[in-house]
């Protein structure tokens, strides 16, 4: 409401922009304030004012009436005067009853017009009772008594002005009641002086009514202002209360913000990672303790300077580009690896997460960079890679000599050797081969788990691959006196896989089956459709998978029976590698008991549309 007022004030001021304009606006404001008063309230106040004056009217009428009765009663007029007195007393009593009823009334506001009408009737009655005195007694009175009565009328009419000032029509009725009959009597008396006085009466009446009218206006305006300001005060109080409440809430919010600010500052300050706050132009605004330690600069050496101080010079151009992009897109950039020179010149590699802080207008107000020193981590990764590479080379080279030498002896190329010696060199060759398998498997699984194994998928016919794997593992089968047989071949079944890696899986499954099959047995390989996939299964007639081993059969270094391992070789990594390879080729692998004894290992791969 106050806002509307101010807006109006502002509006008129700017519209006119002059002193007159201001005056107009002040008047407009006053009018507006007055208009805020409830007219019903204003009327009720005026009615209350009138009723408050009633005791004066009643008292004055009673006393003046008593004096007049005492003064006017002559011998022949005695009854008439007493009747008149009785009328005055009755009217006074009725007026008193009205006053009493008004004060007892519960709703003075709603029924104010009604109370006003009753008061008008009472006033008219009061006036008329004096008029009656004038009309009836005046002609019969002595000259002195006529002067007395005229004086009394004038007095009573004058007293009515302040008494009925809150409503000029009531005064007009009241005064007309007194002066109307008196005017008529004077005009018709037959005396020139009285006619002249009679002519003055309406003038006198009009003047009084005019004064009463003016007074009524003043009262009306006064009450309106009173109510308007009362309402303003109430609004003001409500506004104040609301403001106070908001202040309390604001204070609470401020405390919370301050607390979280302190918490955040504490996090940033104590965090083990470097936290740097930057201005949108790339100037350092704040750095935490970890950043000071990491880069060897004191905070005040960095604050106010460019962030580029901490970026390798050859990366400055790239930094500018990235920074522009960051400020434009306003999106956080995680995992940025940059070389950062320390104060002593040593270059660190840090991984940064850079987050722009944006205000409600979507403007970047600051950028928070959180950096972690990953130099040691990268070095460790490099060393691990180097170690793997070294392991691969340095172990394979001597194994080449060992296995190669033994193979040359065992193959008979070097001539016949003693039977017992040959047995030993065969054992040595087999175990050399086992060691080599283990190294290859460890390297494979390391490569798969570090995500460094890249597949070279091609579309191949499943039955061709099965045949190839059977040829490749024929020697292995012969060693364990086991034959491989396939069924269900169909050249239509094609898959999109890494051929060499799938052969590796087949070799693992076939060699496992051969190892655990009874001598002279047959390992069967079946190929069939399984929904959208092709299912290849290798069935043996071995002893089955022990219950306790089933859940971890595809885990690393899982072997059911270490005695069997020693006897038959195997690294315990084969099935773990198979599982990972098949999954890398979007397939799945599993096993089940074979009806009639033995186990079926199977894998399924998505069929490639022929």
């Amino acid at each position, binding site marked *: 409401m106050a806002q509307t007022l101010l807006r109006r004030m502002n509006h008129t001021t700017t519209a006119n922009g002059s002193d007159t304009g201001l005056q107009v606006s002040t008047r407009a404001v006053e009018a507006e304030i007055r208009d805020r008063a409830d007219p019903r309230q204003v009327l009720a106040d005026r009615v209350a004012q009138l009723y408050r004056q009633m005791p004066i009217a009643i008292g004055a009428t009673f006393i003046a009436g008593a004096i007049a009765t005492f003064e006017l009663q002559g011998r022949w007029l005695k009854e008439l005067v007493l009747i008149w007195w009785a009328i005055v007393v009755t009217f006074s009593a009725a007026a008193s009853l009205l006053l009493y009823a008004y004060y007892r009334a519960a709703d003075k506001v709603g029924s104010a017009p009604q109370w006003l009408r009753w008061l008008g009737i009472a006033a008219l009655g009061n006036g008329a009772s004096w008029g009656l005195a004038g009309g009836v007694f005046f002609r019969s009175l002595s000259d002195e008594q006529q002067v007395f009565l005229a004086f009394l009328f004038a007095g009573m009419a004058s007293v009515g002005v302040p008494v009925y000032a809150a409503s000029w029509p009531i005064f007009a009725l009241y005064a007309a009641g007194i002066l109307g009959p008196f005017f008529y009597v004077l005009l018709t008396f037959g005396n020139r002086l009285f006619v002249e006085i009679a002519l003055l009466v309406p003038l006198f009446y009009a003047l009084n009514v005019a004064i009463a009218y003016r007074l009524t206006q003043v009262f009306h305006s006064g009450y309106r202002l009173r109510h308007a300001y009362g309402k303003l005060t109430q609004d003001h109080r409500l506004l104040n209360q609301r403001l106070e409440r908001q202040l309390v809430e604001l204070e609470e919010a401020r405390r919370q913000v301050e607390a979280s600010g302190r918490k955040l500052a504490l996090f940033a300050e104590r965090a083990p990672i470097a936290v740097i706050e930057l201005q949108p132009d790339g100037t350092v605004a704040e750095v935490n303790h970890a950043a000071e330690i990491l880069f060897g600069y004191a905070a005040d050496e960095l604050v106010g300077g460019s962030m580029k101080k901490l970026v390798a010079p050859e990366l400055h151009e790239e930094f500018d580009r990235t920074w522009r992009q960051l400020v434009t897109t306003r999106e956080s950039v995680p995992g940025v690896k940059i070389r950062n020179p320390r104060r002593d010149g040593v270059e660190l590699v840090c991984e940064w997460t850079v987050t722009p802080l944006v205000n409600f207008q979507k403007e970047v107000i600051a950028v928070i960079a959180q950096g972690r020193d990953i130099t040691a981590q990268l070095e460790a990764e490099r060393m691990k890679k180097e170690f793997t*590479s070294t392991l*691969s*080379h340095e172990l*394979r*080279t*001597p*194994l*080449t*000599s060992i*296995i*190669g*030498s033994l*193979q*040359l002896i065992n*193959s008979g*190329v*070097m001539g016949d050797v003693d039977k017992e010696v040959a047995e030993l060199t065969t054992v040595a060759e087999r175990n050399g081969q086992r060691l*080599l398998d283990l190294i290859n498997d460890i390297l494979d699984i390391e*490569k798969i788990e570090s995500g460094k194994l*890249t597949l*070279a998928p091609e579309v191949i016919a499943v039955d061709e691959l099965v045949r190839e794997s059977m040829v490749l593992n024929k020697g292995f089968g012969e060693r364990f006196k086991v034959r491989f047989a396939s069924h269900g071949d169909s050249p239509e079944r094609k898959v999109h896989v890494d051929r060499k890696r799938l052969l590796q899986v087949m070799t693992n499954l076939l060699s496992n089956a051969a190892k655990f099959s009874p001598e002279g047995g047959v390992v069967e390989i079946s190929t069939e459709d399984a929904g959208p996939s092709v299912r290849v299964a290798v069935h043996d007639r071995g002893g089955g998978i022990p219950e306790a081993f089933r859940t971890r059969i595809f885990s690393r270094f899982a072997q059911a029976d270490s005695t069997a391992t020693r006897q038959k070789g195997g690294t315990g990594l084969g099935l773990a590698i198979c599982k990972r390879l098949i999954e890398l080729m979007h397939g799945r692998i599993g096993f089940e008991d074979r009806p009639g004894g033995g186990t079926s290992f199977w894998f399924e791969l998505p069929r490639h549309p022929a």
Partner: protein
Amino acid sequence: MPDRPLNRICYVEDDEDVQRIVRLSLERVGKMTVAVVSDPTQAIATMTEFRPDLVMLDWMMPVLDGPALFRQMKLRPDTSALPVVFITARASQRDLDELKSLGAAGTISKPFSPKDLPDQLRAIWAALP
């Protein structure tokens, strides 16, 4: 496919034990003539003199590794046309691809089987244009 059988092999390898096994394998099993070079910097001189049908290079050697030696061979008219087979303990697909891209005739990974080595080489020889 070359019109003559594979016979003369020049093998550059710094590890003496592997040298011996390869020599035995190729001579005894494969019945081939072998010249072994321990010092890769002397390899080109030996090749020029020995005039092999095929050259086997070890990948990792001190001073001059297999690929570097191969590049040198390519620069010389008397060795540039010789088919080269790399023998390596590094077996990653990327390494093998790299060797192929250098123009190698084939690769054999360590450890190899001395029993099968001559046949492997003959298969590569047969696949040559």
